[in-house]
Structure formats: structure tokens, C-alpha cells
């Protein structure tokens, strides 16, 4: 039974407790969200006011060849990373979960380590590994193609190699989630399957795969959202080139805003990415709910 006095006190405490977060959230998140939407309907430069131009930025985007290229490259990059990294993470997780004790901890540490590195450290190391003159991987590339390749300056190699670097960097996260998923599968299911004479192959497809699916779906959608936000690696390794072959949406947003001084147009580009990712997140949420209900 709450007296009105106690209820008032509770409200006051609640207000004091949410106030700091609410202030930060409103000032540095909600307000920028509002202003990026508002800016996208103007011809504003990066700093300063612009005029209301309605949907002009969006109609311009529809016909912008570079934007089409960017969208395509984002899509291509998603193809190159999302499913491969999920498969690799699953294989690694299956292998690691078979190991015991300290050996398991050691192997997991090695696979996870790249994930904690800053992106520019990752790109520096890989730029050196793939260096045209002295790169340790160039003999390998030469063995396949017959000659060394300056991979980040080559229109065909650039995206696949950025994908390789990205998978190396971020895969540890997926491995962890997969291992957690594998641990949550009850051991007696495997025992029952073994008693029924199921082979390892059958055990995987009949027990592991369906029970792991919620986690697999989570990894797939998280990766999809993450990889759509590609910018750092491209900026650092190829700067969008050669011939715009690695130009992506956030790269275009960056150039339009900070180099060409087109704040309004850059905001419209940001909004397209925004919408893409919100739609995907809603789908992910629904997918997980369905997965959870089973």
C-alpha cells in the first residue's frame, strides 16, 4: 500500500535517476537524429543554414551513379562477408568446443584476439602482409595468379581482400556467440542420438544445426547490420578506389559532408542507410522472436 507521499518520493527519485541519461540521450542522440532528418530536406552546407528543398536530395540520389555504385559495393561486401564469416565461425566453434580445459582456453584466445584490436592496427598489419614488394602473402598470390598483385589498388582484388581483413578482424565475436550457443544444447540429446546409432554427420544436422539456429540467425543478422556500416577499413586500405570499386555508402556520406561541404545531401545518404538498417533490425527482432517461440 503506497501512501501518496511515498509515491511522490518514488517519482522524485526516479526522475533524478533518469535525468542524467535522458539529458545526454536527448542532446546527443535524439536531437542529432531529428536534425539529420531535417537536414536531409535542405541544401545546407556542412556548417551553416540551407534552404528547404523538399525531396530534391532524395530524387538526386535516385539518379546518382556514384550512389548506385556505393550501394552495389555495400551489397557485394555483405555477400563476401556475412555468410562466409558465419560458416567459418561455426567451424571454429565446433572445433574449439571439442577441446578441453586449458587447450580450449588457449585456442579460443588466439581466435578471439584480433577482435580487440583497433581497426587502424588491423589495416596496418594487413597492408604489410599484402605489401606489393615485401608482403609475406605475395608469394602465395603469385602462385595462384602468376605474379604479385597490389591488391588494394586492383579493381578485382580490392573488395574480396577488404572482406578477408574484415572477417579476420571481427570473426572472434561470432565464434564466441556460436560457442555459447553450442554450450546451451543439452548433452543428453547427443547421448540419445548416439544410442539411436546416429552418425556424427546425422547428429550435426539433426541436433546441433536446428538447436543452434537461433544463434546462427542472430550472428547472420548482426553481421548484416555491422557490415552495412563499412567505412573504416575501406578508408584506411583503399580510400574507396581504385575506380570507385570499393566506394561505399558511408564513404560517400563522408566525402559529401566533409570534403564537398554538402551537409544536406550527405544527410539524405545517411537517411537511406538509416532506413535500411532499421528495416533489417525489425526483421531481425521478428526472426529472433520466432526463433525464441519454438
Amino acid at each position, binding site marked *: 500500500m503506497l501512501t501518496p507521499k511515498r509515491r511522490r518520493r518514488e517519482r522524485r527519485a*526516479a526522475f533524478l535517476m533518469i535525468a542524467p541519461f535522458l539529458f545526454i540521450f536527448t542532446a546527443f542522440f535524439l*536531437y542529432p537524429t531529428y536534425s539529420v532528418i531535417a537536414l536531409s530536406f535542405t541544401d545546407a552546407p556542412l556548417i551553416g543554414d540551407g534552404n528547404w528543398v523538399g525531396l530534391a536530395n532524395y530524387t538526386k540520389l535516385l539518379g546518382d551513379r556514384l550512389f548506385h555504385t556505393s550501394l552495389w559495393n555495400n551489397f557485394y561486401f555483405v555477400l563476401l562477408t556475412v555468410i562466409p564469416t558465419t560458416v567459418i565461425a561455426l567451424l571454429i566453434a565446433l572445433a574449439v568446443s*571439442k577441446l578441453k580445459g586449458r*587447450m580450449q582456453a588457449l585456442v579460443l584466445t588466439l581466435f578471439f*584476439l584480433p577482435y580487440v584490436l*583497433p581497426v587502424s592496427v588491423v589495416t596496418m598489419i594487413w597492408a604489410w602482409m599484402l605489401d606489393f614488394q615485401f608482403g609475406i602473402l605475395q608469394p602465395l598470390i603469385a602462385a595462384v595468379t602468376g605474379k604479385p598483385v597490389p591488391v588494394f589498388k586492383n579493381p578485382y582484388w580490392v573488395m574480396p581482400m577488404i572482406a578477408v581483413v574484415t572477417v579476420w578482424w571481427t570473426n572472434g565475436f561470432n565464434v564466441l556467440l556460436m560457442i555459447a550457443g553450442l554450450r546451451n544444447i543439452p548433452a543428453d540429446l547427443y547421448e540419445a542420438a548416439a544410442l539411436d546409432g546416429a552418425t556424427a554427420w546425422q547428429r550435426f544436422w539433426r541436433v546441433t544445426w536446428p538447436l543452434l539456429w537461433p544463434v546462427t540467425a542472430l550472428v547472420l543478422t548482426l553481421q548484416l547490420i555491422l557490415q552495412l556500416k563499412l567505412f573504416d577499413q575501406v578508408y584506411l586500405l583503399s580510400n574507396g578506389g581504385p575506380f570507385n570499386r570499393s566506394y561505399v555508402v*558511408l564513404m560517400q556520406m563522408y566525402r559529401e*559532408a566533409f570534403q564537398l561541404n554538402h551537409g544536406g545531401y550527405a544527410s539524405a545518404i545517411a537517411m537511406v542507410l538509416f532506413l535500411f538498417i532499421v528495416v533489417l533490425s525489425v526483421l531481425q527482432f521478428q526472426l529472433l522472436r520466432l526463433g525464441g517461440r519454438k
Partner: protein
Amino acid sequence: MTLKQARTLAFTGLVLIAAAIWTFPLYWALTTSLRSENRIVSDGSGWLLDELNFGAFREILGNSKLPMWYMNSVGTSLIITVIVLVTGMMCAYALSQLRFPGRRLLYLVVVGSFMVPVPALYVAQFVLMNDLGLVNTWWGIILPQLVVPVVIIVYKQFFDAIPKEMREAVVLDGGGEFTLLFKLYLPLNWGITAALAIITFISAWNNFFWPFLVVTSEDMMTIPVGITQVNDAFGVAYARMMALALLAAAPVIIGYLVFQKRVTEAVMISAGVKG
């Protein structure tokens, strides 16, 4: 040795080799960083650590702004971590334990903000920081990184799980809500607090895109942005580049190795998966 043992051993060996290959780029960076530049240019880097030449490390520490960038990274990441955790735990406590108008709405907004791709806000956040005169300052780096909804969601889950009876003792002693949070709910959740602190710190430390936009003066750069400047300044200098990369990575690598369990726990919890 039975056949089964032999197979287990062979399997373990294979996985270990795969893990070693996976980590090879880091080893390669290490061997390169410990060679003289001349030797790298004449016969490339080597597989073995047969030379321990710390010249590259000395030069980086002496002739670059790395120490300054360390300061900026440590300072901004620490401030971000403290503010995110304190504001997050208070907000989560209110959402979890208190009744007030707009509670459901606030929770929905927090969960919903998960979906917003933060880089899409960078143009507007930059304009805001510019209006506030915070470009090229620590606060310019810090402020837009203070919204981390996952911290609130995780704290709320953990606060929800604490039995209500435990509150009574504190309430009978005349303790208010702040006492409850800091004397009861927080001490019961030091583990998760440590995990959230580590993951917040690492992601602030590793953020490249935002500090890259808001800082243009070399003296204010954080590690991930600063080291790309050296890249441009040195030209061809393989040993020095790798020494730089390793020095930049050292704090997170050491931090990860020391707090390994907490890091993996935090990663799993923040993705909504129980380990």
C-alpha cells in the same frame, strides 16, 4: 596409446595449427618490428625472431606523438566508461524498480535506439559539436559516445532478477532509492559492472570514425586515428610501422589477456546470449 587417443591428439594439433595461422599476422608484425629497416628491404622479414633490434620502438616512442595519443585515448575512454556506467545504472534502476509516468515509453525508446546506425548521425553530431565549440577537444570526442543503450538493457535484466525481499532490510533502515542502488544493487552486480566497463572501454578506445571526424589537430588525436598520421609521415618504414601498430595495440591486447573471462562474458551478454 589407443586409436581414439591418437585421433584426439591429431585433432587437437590441427586446431592448434589453425589457431596459430589465424594469429600469424600479429606474430609477423612482431618479427618485422624487431628487425632493422635495411635488413627488411634487403631480404624481407623473417620467420624467426633472430634479431632483437628495438630501434624501431625507440624511435616511435621518442619521435612520434604516440605518448600524447595514449593520454587522449586513456582519458576519453575512461571518462566515457564512467559516465556511461553511472548514468546507465541509475536509469536501469529506475526502469527496473521504480514506478513513474512514462516508464514504458522510456524503455521502448532505449530499446528502439539500438536500431539506429550511429554513423548515420555523425554529420548532425559534428554540426552540433561545432556549434558547441567542441571540435578538437576531449568533450567533442566524448559526448556523442555516451549513449550506449545496451548498458541499460543489461543492467535492467540483472536488477530485475534481484529478489524484492532484499530491499526491505535497507528500506527499514531508512535508506532511500540511491542508497538501495549504491549499497545493494550495485554491490550485487560488480561482476556485470566490470564486464560492461571493459566492453564500453574497449569500444571507446577502438572507435575510429568519430574521433577521426571531430579531431583534426594531431595533438588531440586518439590512438587509432593518430597512428594513421605517422603512416603518412614516415613513408616506407616497415619496422617502424609494425612497432607503432604493436604499441598502439598493446593496451587492448594486455587488457584482454588479463581480463579475458570478463571480456568474453561481456561480449556474450551484450549480444543477448547467455554463456
